[in-house]
């Protein structure tokens, strides 16, 4: 038998050890969190440092003369004339005027290579928007070719990358820089255009629209179906082997690799139902399959968290089961359901693999206007750009990742906000 003094001594002896264990636990937790934050920080810094350049692109100031004869146009309302006109000729003339020293085919070609391939079409749009410009001159900032862009940016940062530049081109750029006729401008193309083979012409707007259309389909299908399934399983379904079986399989579905959903979508939606491939419609359907288990599981958890006393109160008042669900359970569990849905949507937004299987990996220049237009989505666009050999696509890729991440952050913040805002306490 221990007397109380002996007990006290033992307790005091054990205290030191107990507090030591507690401190170890505390510090290992802090270390884990620091590590996690550090990883996130490195990711953000890396992506931002690579990608921020893409928000600005190099432009060259040229004196453009809209020469009707050179274009071969006499009527600005004639679509055919506009389509057949050689718009690049305006750029070529302007460039030759700027640098008369370029002689011979080779040098001329290098000279014309200063500006983007698609810049002629920008001039076409300018002229159509303002027909008075015909046969007059104006100074226009023309978007530069991606090699020039890469060189100019690296030159500005003091570490010129001249692999794909000729000596002549380097000279011209120095001349332009002295004249103040070359500068970095906010890249409107990045936010207004679809994909392009030319990095300076490529934008993410097509992918953003594709993502929006796809997510709209996903939300409109998966939220009502998921909530209805959750309510049925939680409130109405009898507890038996069949419902147990369904429950186990919903949990299994949540763990199925997403590419399998892509194969399923390919086999069922495209090959059997003939839904147009590469379209947000089929993408949304596939992502619905993928998101449903998440929404069902979170919705069931939300329904379960409604206190039984509320159900009893309503039942005791003579409410039918349907009324109990509609008047009480659903409104009370809605914040939880919405949170689950948003997290499911965020998952769907970042999903690439299943969409590869249904053709959303195609090279699509046009911005999708509806649910059945061919489209691609943000993560797939990142995948496509990361795969492109042009050096300028490296920063485009990082810029697209930044845009995708900001969408995800906004969605997750909305989820937190909804939870905080609508949460009720009993």
């Amino acid at each position, binding site marked *: 038998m221990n007397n109380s003094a002996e007990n006290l001594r033992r307790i005091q002896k054990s205290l030191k050890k107990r507090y030591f264990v507690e401190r170890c636990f505390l510090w290992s937790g802090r270390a884990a969190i620091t590590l996690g934050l550090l990883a996130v920080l490195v990711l953000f810094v890396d992506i931002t440092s690579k990608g921020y350049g893409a928000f600005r692109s190099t432009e060259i100031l040229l004196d453009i003369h809209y020469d009707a004869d050179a274009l071969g146009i006499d009527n600005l309302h004639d679509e055919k004339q506009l389509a057949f006109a050689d718009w690049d000729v305006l750029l070529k003339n302007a460039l030759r005027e700027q640098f008369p020293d370029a002689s011979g085919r080779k040098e001329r070609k290098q000279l014309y290579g200063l500006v983007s391939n698609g810049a002629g079409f920008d001039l076409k749009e300018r002229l159509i928007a303002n027909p008075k410009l015909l046969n007059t001159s104006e100074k226009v900032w023309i978007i530069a070719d991606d090699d020039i862009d890469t060189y100019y940016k690296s030159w500005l940062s003091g570490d010129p990358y001249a692999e794909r530049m000729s000596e002549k081109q380097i000279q011209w750029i120095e001349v332009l820089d002295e004249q103040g006729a070359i500068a970095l401008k906010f890249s409107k193309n990045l936010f207004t255009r679809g994909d392009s083979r030319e990095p300076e012409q490529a934008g993410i707007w097509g992918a953003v629209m594709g993502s929006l259309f796809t997510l709209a389909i996903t939300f409109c299908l998966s939220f009502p179906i998921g909530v209805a399934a959750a309510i049925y399983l939680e409130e109405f379904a009898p507890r038996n082997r069949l419902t147990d079986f369904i429950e186990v399989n919903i949990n299994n579905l949540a763990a199925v690799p997403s590419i399998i959903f892509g194969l399923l979508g390919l086999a069922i939606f495209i090959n059997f139902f003939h839904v147009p491939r590469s379209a947000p419609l089929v993408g949304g359907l596939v992502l619905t399959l993928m998101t449903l288990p998440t929404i069902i599981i979170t919705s069931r958890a939300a329904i379960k968290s409604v206190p039984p006393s509320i159900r009893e109160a309503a039942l005791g008042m003579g409410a039918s089961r349907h009324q109990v669900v509609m008047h009480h359970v659903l409104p009370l569990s809605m914040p939880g359901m919405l949170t689950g849905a948003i997290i499911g949507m965020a998952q769907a937004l970042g999903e690439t693999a299943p969409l590869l299987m249904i053709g959303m990996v195609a090279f699509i220049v046009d911005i999708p206007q509806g649910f059945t237009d061919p489209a691609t989505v943000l993560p797939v666009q990142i995948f496509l750009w990361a795969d492109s050999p042009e050096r300028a696509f490296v920063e485009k890729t990082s810029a697209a990742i930044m845009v995708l991440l900001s969408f995800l952050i906004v969605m997750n913040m909305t989820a937190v906000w909804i939870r905080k805002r609508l949460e*009720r306490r009993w």
Partner: protein
Amino acid sequence: MPDMKVNEKHVTVGKQFHDDPRMTMRNVNVFYGEKQAIHDVSIDIGKNEVMAMIGPSGCGKSTFLRSLNRMNDTVEGCRVEGEICMDGESLYNTKLDVVELRARVGMVFQKPNPFPKSIYENVAYGAKIHGLADSRIDLDEIVENSLNKAGLWKEVKDRLHQPGTGLSGGQQQRLCIARAIAVTPEVILMDEPCSALDPIATARIEELIKELSENFTIAIVTHSMQQAARVSDRTAYFHLGQLIEVNPTEQVFTMPEHELTEGYITGRFG
């Protein structure tokens, strides 16, 4: 300590029947799966009577109460046998709809459970789902009357549209009573309505039960013998799922007929 074993063929002692019954229960057995919770209970609850049900924990008094408005239907594996009638009509007869039954037999629960809505919405809920009010004015009147009867009107009339969950525990319970009487049931079941309340709030509820007994039949389950003695006309003593004794309250607490009842009220067990 008295012999706590219950006889196989137990006979309830005292005056378990009533001349003018609102509810009549005959040979009621309740099972949870294999386990039998209520053994062969027969009892009447008279019109405008306050019937208290007392007994040690787990004696089945709440289970019995909950079978009077079929709240046990929601419990998985619960089965009720025997005959429970209200005004001569069998409750477990399929002809009587459970929604109608619960409009006629209201219930107040152990823990105050107002809906997380406004005070007004809480009281108006029953009238709304049963379609009792033809207009907004009717509804306002129902809400005011019910809150008045529950003794809550003066306290809440200026904040009808604030959440009912913001009231104190006692007020919440009176709100739940107001909610129950808003659909003018014939019977009100109360399942330990004061066990979560402080003594002052409890006293208010007890007063309220007295007042309500003028218009309603009340069956109340309680842990507190003093409460049973204060509010009820007759008291039923349950023990291990059997109804041991039913007698006028005064008699139960002064001269109990059965030794188990005596053992319980004198505090020898329970």
